[in-house]
C-alpha cells in the first residue's frame, strides 16, 4: 500500500520563557493512501500540533514530514498555500465558516480560489451540499444553522475540491452522540467514495469505529498503534 504521509522523528518544542514544552517528542508515523487514521490521546498530548504540521501551518523544531514526497517543513508561505490548495482539505472543531457568506458561498470558496468559473463551482457546491444533506439550506448563513449543520457545511467545503488528504481536528467535538455518528458516517463515506486519506483527531468513542487505525499519543510520543481488522483487509486488498 502506497504511503502518502511519512513523518520522521518529528519534534516540536515550545519555549515559554525558561520553560520548554515538548508538544511533540519524536514522532514516527506512516499513513497509507486511503486509510482513515485517528489520533487519540489525552488533552495536551500534541494531536493538534501534529495535524497542523502535516498541513504546514506550523514548522517543526526537528524532523521531517513528507506528504506525497513533498517536504512540507521546507516550503515557504507561497508554496504552502499552493500545497494546501492542491492536496489538503481541512475540517475544524469550531467549523470556521465565514459568517457573512451563505452555506453555498462557503462551499464555493475553495473553488473560487482555484479560479473555477461561477457555473461550475456552484454546480459542484450544490452537489456537495446535497450529499451532506443540506440541499434545502443553500442560502442560509452560518448563524442560521445548527452546529451539526454548520459542520456539514464545513465537511462539504473540505471535500468539494476532492483533495487527496482530509485533515480533521475533532470534527465532532462540539456535537452530540447522534450527530457525531452522522458526521462520521459522512466523512468515512465520502473518503471511501473518492479514495481519500483521512487524518482525524478525536476524543469521541463513537468516532473510533470509523478509523482503520488508532494512534495513541501521550505527552508527544506515540504510545501504540491499534490496527483494525479492516486496515489489514485494506492492506491485503491493495497488495
Amino acid at each position, binding site marked *: 500500500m502506497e504511503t502518502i504521509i511519512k513523518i520522521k522523528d518529528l519534534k516540536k518544542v515550545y519555549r515559554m520563557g525558561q520553560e520548554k514544552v515538548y508538544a511533540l517528542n519524536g514522532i514516527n508515523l506512516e499513513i497509507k493512501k486511503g486509510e482513515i487514521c485517528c489520533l487519540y490521546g489525552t488533552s495536551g498530548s500534541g494531536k493538534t500540533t501534529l495535524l*497542523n504540521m502535516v*498541513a504546514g*501551518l*506550523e514548522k517543526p523544531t526537528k524532523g521531517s514530514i513528507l506528504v506525497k514526497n513533498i517536504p512540507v517543513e521546507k516550503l515557504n*508561505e*507561497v508554496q504552502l*498555500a*499552493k500545497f*494546501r*490548495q492542491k492536496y489538503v*482539505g*481541512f475540517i*475544524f472543531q469550531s467549523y*470556521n*465558516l*465565514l459568517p*457573512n457568506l451563505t452555506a453555498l458561498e462557503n462551499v464555493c*470558496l*475553495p473553488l*473560487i*480560489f*482555484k*479560479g473555477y*468559473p461561477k457555473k461550475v463551482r456552484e454546480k459542484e457546491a450544490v452537489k456537495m451540499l446535497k450529499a451532506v444533506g443540506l440541499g434545502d439550506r443553500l442560502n442560509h448563513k452560518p448563524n442560521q444553522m445548527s452546529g451539526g449543520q454548520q459542520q456539514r457545511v464545513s465537511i462539504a*467545503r*473540505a471535500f468539494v*475540491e476532492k483533495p487527496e488528504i482530509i485533515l480533521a481536528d475533532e470534527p465532532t467535538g462540539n456535537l452530540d452522540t447522534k450527530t457525531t455518528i452522522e458526521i462520521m458516517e459522512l466523512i468515512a463515506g465520502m473518503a471511501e467514495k473518492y479514495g481519500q486519506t483521512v487524518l482525524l483527531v478525536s476524543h469521541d468513542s463513537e468516532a473510533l469505529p470509523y478509523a482503520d487505525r488508532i494512534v495513541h499519543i501521550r505527552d508527544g510520543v506515540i504510545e501504540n498503534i491499534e490496527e483494525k481488522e479492516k486496515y489489514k483487509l485494506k492492506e491485503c486488498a491493495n497488495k
Partner: protein
Amino acid sequence: MKIFDIIRMALRNLFRSKVRTVLTVLGIVIGTTAIIIMLSLGIAINVSYREQMSRMGSLNVINVHPNYENINTGKRGRNDVWVEPTISQEELDKIKQIPNVEAVTPFYQTSVKMEIGKYLGYVTIVGIEPDAMEALEYKAAEGRLLNPDDKLQIVFGSNMKDQFYNPKEMRRGLVFYGYGGPGEEKDINFLEDRINMTFDMSYGERYPGSQTGKKPKLYKVEGVGILEEGNWETAYQAYMNIHELVKLDQEYKQQQANPDQKIRRRKTEEVGFQQAKVKVNEIKNVLDVQEQIRAIGLNAWSMAESLESANKTQAVMQGVLGGIGAISLLVAAIGIANTMIMAIYERTKEIGIMKVIGARIKDIRRLFLYEASMIGFIGGVIGIAFSFGVSYFLNTVGVRFLGGMGMGMGMTDTKLSIIPVWLALSGMIFSALIGLISGFFPARKATKLSALSAIHTE
C-alpha cells in the same frame, strides 16, 4: 482566483461595513475635489492670460525697437539736437542673417488723413514689406493682403471705421474732435469706396492750419483688404507698401521744407525705422533669436518671452494651489490606510480561514489592494462629479459675484475654474492610485498573518 471574483468579493466586503466605507470615501471625495478645484482655478487664470496674450499678437514674432536706453550714445542731429534713435537698414540686414529667422520687415509709421465719401479720418499708416505680411500672420478677413507690386493699395485694420468722422456732425457738436468713435454704423466700405489720402492734417477742415502755403498732394488710394478682428495691435492701423510710403513721405517733407533748407529725398534703405518685426520659424527658437538681436544692440520684445516668465510664476501658483489640495488628499489617503488596517483586525480570523482552505498569498494581497483602490476610485469618481458641480457654480454664481464687485473686468465669458478632460481623468486615476498605495501596507500586513494564529483569534 479570477479578477472578477476578487472585485466582487472586495465590493462585498466594502458593503459590509457601509458606514466606515462611506466615511472613507467621503474623505477621498473631499480630497479629490480640493485638488481638482484648486488646479482648475490655476488653469483658468492661465487660459485667460493666454487668451489675452494671443489678442496682442502672434507668439513667434519678435518686436524690435531701437535702444532708447543709450541716449548718450544716440545720434546727434543738426544743431546738436538729439534725434530719436532708429533702426538702420544695416541692422536689419544683420537680423536677417540670424538662423531660424523667417522674415524681417521694418515698420515705417506716419500719420495721414483720409477722405471716404463724407467722412474724414486720421489714420496711422504703417509701411511694411508686402511679402512679410503673411509670414507675420496678418490675416485678411475681407479682400487680400499686400502684394510686392502694390503701390497705393491699402489694407485696413479691423476697427478702422472708428477713426472716421463726419465733419458736419462734428461741427454740430455730435462727435468729439477728430474721432467718430464706434457709435452709429458709418456708411463706409473700404474695399469699394473711393479713398483720398494726404499728409496734410488740416485737409478738409474749414480753417486749414498754418502751412507753408504749398498745397500737399492728394493721392487716390485703393482699399484691397481688411484684417481679421481680435488683434488689438493691428485693429487701428492701415498698411501700405513701405517703399511707396517712404517715397510719398519724403516727397511731402521736401515739398514742405523751407526753400533754403536743402532736403534730399532719401530712399527706403536710408531712412531709419522706429520699429521692426521679426518672424521666427518655431516658438522654441524665439528666445534664442531675441538674444542675438539684443547682441546687435537693439531692443527686442516678444510675447513668447513674457509668456514664459508668466508661465514660471503660474507654475509656482499652480504648485501652491495644488499643494493645498494635495494635503487634504493625503489626509484622505491616511483615512484609507486606517480603514484597511481596521478591516484586517476585524477580519483576521477570516483571513486565516481563507489561507487554510486554499487562498493564495497573492489572492489575499489583491483582495485588500482592490478594496483600498476601490475606495480611492469611487471617491475619485464622485469627487470629480462634485468638482464639476463646484466649478459650474464658480463660473456662474461666482463670476457674477465678482462682476458685481467690479472684478469681472467686463468680460462676460471669463471662467474662474476650468476642468480639462485630462485633469478629470488624471484625478480619477490618481485617487485610485492613492487608494492602491494606502492599501499596500495593510495588504502586506494581511499576507504576513500566520494562518494558525489568525484562526485562533476571536
